[in-house]
């Protein structure tokens, strides 16, 4: 198999993962495709090492997250500002948390609603929420990546969860 064909196979294995990370963080398909393209160009440059590396997936995830956060950085400043203007009082969940969400819908419809809900979330909630629940980063790692304090990360994620649950409830007609 020549280099190009091998890289095409490699890309096929990881392109959904890379695109998912980028699209969930940005909430925008076009921007996510641009970022995914940039990630795979970097992967191609490092392909001699990556082709046999057992940690290629992790490498791609890290690069995707870093590039996406760089892309969002100018918005991040604004989000940090507004986030810090709020008091801690609204941390409390002010509605009864359901045991399940969207269970009466079929899987494809449910997946579609979740993706749409993520897009609808304000960026200041979406980014830390996606990093925590979808990318499985710890609070400390998120604080480091976003260069914000640990309590702020926890606050934003908590607010993000509440906002997402409300949107999902509304979308599911509960």
């Amino acid at each position, binding site marked *: 198999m020549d280099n*190009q064909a091998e890289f*095409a196979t490699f*890309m*096929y294995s990881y*392109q*959904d*993962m*890379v*695109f*998912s990370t980028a*699209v*969930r963080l940005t909430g925008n*398909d076009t921007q996510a*495709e641009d970022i*995914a*393209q940039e990630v*795979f*160009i970097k992967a*191609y440059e490092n392909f001699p090492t990556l082709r046999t590396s057992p940690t290629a997936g992790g490498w791609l995830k890290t690069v995707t997250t870093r590039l996406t956060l760089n892309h969002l950085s100018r918005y991040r400043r604004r989000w940090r500002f507004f986030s810090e203007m709020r008091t801690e009082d609204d*941390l*409390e*969940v002010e509605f009864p*948390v*359901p*045991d*399940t*969400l*969207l269970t009466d819908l079929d899987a494809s419809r*449910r*997946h579609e609603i*979740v*993706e749409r809900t993520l897009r609808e979330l304000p960026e200041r909630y979406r980014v830390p*929420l996606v990093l*925590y*629940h*979808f990318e*499985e*980063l*710890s609070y400390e790692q998120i604080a480091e990546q976003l260069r914000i304090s640990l309590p702020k990360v926890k606050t934003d994620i*908590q607010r993000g*969860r*509440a906002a*997402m*649950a409300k949107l*999902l409830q509304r979308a599911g007609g509960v």
Partner: protein
Amino acid sequence: MTDPRDRLSGERGGGLGRDQAGGAGHDERGALERLIDGVARAQPPRRAPASLETRVFAQIAARPWWSKGFAHWPVLARAAFLVASFGFIKLTLVGVMWVIDFVRTSDVAGVDALHRTSNAVSATVSLGSLVLNAIPPVWLYIGAAVGFTLYAVLFGLGTFAYRTLYVQR
């Protein structure tokens, strides 16, 4: 990387149910965290657009030859690069040899000043050594003892002055 399920059980005291854990606010927050975590875990990856692969390969093909690996360079460019590299190495060696010869043969102001400073330091050290050898050892011991005594007396006086004049005020 931490598994969110581990994080949840750790933070929630072993994954207690909503009705079991103490503190309503904390309980609701934990339930919400588990709920969103369940939603995230059930979510499959988004399908990448079909155009992505085409775009990536088009960009790879469009890259200029010099941004690719050396093996992908045109033969002429590779030959020119090798010649230029050897030329640069030769030029560097010639330059270094020229600087060494120049410093050795010419009376450069900086080098001369360095020599004079070095000579002055060496002469001072020799003089000090000569004086030290000329003094009888007993005198040196007495001098050291006097110096130590003066230091101790001064230290004692300083302590006394501090305690009487400053601390008790």
